[in-house]
């Protein structure tokens, strides 16, 4: 009571730990679905990623001679590893998750100065690093082997897949976007390539080959709506990203439907839903005004579509996010709210004797 405290003498019941926890809860349905869909290997990979992030972050904080507990308790490192794990192929080997997590929390975050200081989304930076360095492991997809199905893997088999890279019979499959890209190189058009590969209902639920937690479009949407309702995120960036993907996809598919996939294919495949609601809403690496966030989201969506359509990689969300992360300071420089009593350029409003 001796030191002087500044107003306000009241505070909303919020904290960074609570924010992170809410995001994790919103991610849980899609994650559990991924666990069910791909079985024990997915659970192993997720756990390995999170443990690696905790140990890696604790290690660098110790080197910096800072208190470890408050940094770990804010939950941001765990969330980063969680998001990274959701974007990995579910049957990837353990070291992919470890390398990715360590890269995300150490290079992606702590080297910049820790929470709040990093320019690039750590999970996406790690994903791009893995994709460039280990293209084979990062693009080997497996057909879903649900936990409850008769040919689902038991715990032991799951551990073999994750830790001994043991292949499974009939495991090799392709993600939708990868498949389309491959078929194009063989001169096969969309109408044929998509047959039997894309059924909107399955895509909505996520019953397909893909990353661990990116496929369940509806569950991700649900999580995103929870975050919007809890005011953790606003609608601007997600809606803009979905528009950024869907609008050009619609226009081009109307022009040449055999060459350009329609909006539904784009929205329900790859990392668009996860990206729109959980990646580009990362506050640290996105602009700080609603208008800025809208521009940011639109850019992420457009670039995703451009990379998918004309780029060398089948999927573009991670690259698009990193490119727009780099543009964030620029957006913040030019998109500022109008200040009370001033016009949009910052000059005082004229006096008018009512």
């Amino acid at each position, binding site marked *: 009571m001796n030191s002087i405290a500044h107003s306000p003498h009241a505070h909303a019941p919020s904290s960074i730990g609570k924010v992170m926890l809410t995001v994790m809860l919103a991610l849980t349905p899609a994650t559990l679905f991924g666990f069910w869909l791909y079985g024990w290997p997915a659970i192993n990979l997720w756990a390995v990623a999170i443990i690696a992030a905790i140990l890696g972050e604790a290690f660098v904080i110790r080197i910096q001679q800072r208190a470890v507990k408050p940094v770990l308790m804010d939950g941001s490192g765990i969330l980063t590893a969680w998001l990274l794990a959701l974007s990995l192929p579910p049957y990837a080997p353990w070291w992919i998750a470890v390398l990715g997590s360590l890269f995300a929390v150490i290079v992606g975050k702590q080297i910049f100065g820790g929470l709040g200081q990093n320019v690039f989304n750590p999970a996406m930076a790690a994903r791009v690093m893995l994709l460039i360095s280990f293209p084979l492991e990062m693009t080997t997809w497996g057909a879903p082997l649900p936990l409850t199905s008769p040919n689902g893997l038991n715990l032991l088999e799951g551990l073999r897949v994750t830790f001994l890279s043991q292949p499974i019979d009939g495991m090799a499959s392709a993600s939708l976007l990868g498949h389309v890209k491959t078929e194009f190189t063989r001169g096969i058009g969309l109408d044929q390539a998509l047959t039997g590969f894309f059924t909107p209902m399955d895509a909505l639920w996520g019953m397909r080959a893909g990353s661990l937690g990116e496929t369940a479009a509806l569950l991700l949407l649900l999580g995103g709506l929870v975050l919007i309702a809890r005011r953790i995120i606003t609608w601007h960036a997600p809606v803009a990203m979905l528009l950024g993907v869907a609008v050009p996809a619609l226009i081009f598919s109307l022009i040449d439907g055999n060459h350009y996939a329609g909006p539904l294919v784009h929205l329900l495949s790859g990392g668009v839903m996860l990206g729109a609601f959980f990646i580009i809403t990362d506050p640290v690496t996105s602009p700080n005004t609603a208008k800025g966030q809208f521009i940011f989201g639109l850019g992420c969506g457009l670039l995703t579509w451009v990379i998918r359509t004309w780029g060398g990689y089948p999927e573009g969300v991670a690259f698009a996010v990193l490119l727009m992360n780099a543009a964030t300071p620029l957006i913040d420089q030019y998109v500022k709210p109008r200040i009370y009593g001033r016009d949009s350029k910052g000059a005082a409003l004229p006096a*008018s004797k009512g």
Partner: protein
Amino acid sequence: MKIFERFFSGMRGGVHPEGRKDLSAARGIRALPLPQQLFVPLQQHIGAPATPVVNVGERVLKGQLLATAQGNVSAPVHAPASGIIVALGDHVAPHPSGLPVPTFTLACDGLEEWVELQACDDPFALLAEDIAARVAAAGIVGLGGATFPSALKLNLSRGVQTLIINGGECEPYLTCDDRIMRERATAIVEGISLIAQAVAAKEVIVGIEDNKPEAIEAMRGAARASSMKVVAMPSMYPMGSEKQIIQVLTGQEIPAGGRPADIGVLVHNVATAFAVHQAIRFGRPLISRIVTVSGGAIKSPCNVEALVGTPVQELIDFAGGYSQPAARMVLGGPMMGQHISNTAIPVVKGSSGILALTSDEIGHDEASPCIRCSTCVRACPVGLLPLEMAAHIRASDLSGAVDLGLKDCIACGSCSYVCPAHIPLVHYFNYAKGDLAAQERSKLKQEATKKLADARSERIARVERERAEMMAKRKAAREAKERAAKEAAAKAAEEAV
């Protein structure tokens, strides 16, 4: 409907702090028993402190002038009770610093003998100047908390379009304005009419937050015969801030760096309107005010009418004392009030509340790093980027913070309130504003010093120049004299030849 259109162009941002007004809202205003001693500071307003006109040892009557206004921006101070002035000296200030300030100590004699008051039976016959003069003489200042001398505002706002009466009371806990509107609506409405007459306002709007339905009802009832509009405003902090209430009720904004009068608006608080009524109708100076005593650590929160100068401790005792140890004492509301560490400080004209808060209510935590979540940006009613401003101030880049609009910050505390990282944003801004003011003062001082130094070197140069000129003149004169002497000698020699 016009009112609806106005709400769509309403306040930006804002927050919904827990109101906690139920603690004291149902408790009617009760007069505090006369304390033995009152401590009346000379400065209870924005501007210059008042100048004492009574001496120590003198007996004063209730309402008698103790100190007179000094300069253009100032207000007089009156005796809140009859008694003896026992001291004029330092007493702890109602300010977080707790520094001593010049204060009258008045030993009350309990006789409550009033000085002769200049009542007015027909106040609406008064001229605008007379109303302003009586308001000035009564020592009325803005009772919403800003304590700007009210008469000055009247004089600067003559001929405005709209008079807004602020019954927002958006600060949590405080119910003093709510109670005064419920219980003294008729007097307030007459006070409002007098203010409107003093500035010749064409339109009068009373804005009250919709969490005070009884007050709205009472004010509507009292205002039925007049043309003033009583408007229910959405309950959102900082609705009662001058800039925000104007924006919500008129759709206009005060130009940056300007005053409400620039857009033809004048804003006064409801309690100020009541004080104006008391001053004009009965000639009573401002010597008491309604104070809310509340907070989780107060046994029975209440609203009291306390004499100016009453020690805060007396109010706490009147409210039954503490029910548990208070983690923090606050003068004013929790959002913008000041932390006090001494309950010997007096209630002054601007004291709207005394809060004894528990640590649960304060809810403060160690600050953690900013995650740029921009919750503060969404909360700011002015349209600032608090996170960016704080980052600049942390890096000692004050001009960067000013470029981002530091001077437009109204210090309402919405950003600090919502920050999930518990960063004391307003603290940064007020620190920076203080630093800026200090820099400006030192710049003025430097300029003055430079002027003096320039004047000195110029003076020295002039003296030198004058001396050189004088020397040259003298030399010329001497030479002329010598020449003349020589010529004279030569002439004499010639004549002699």
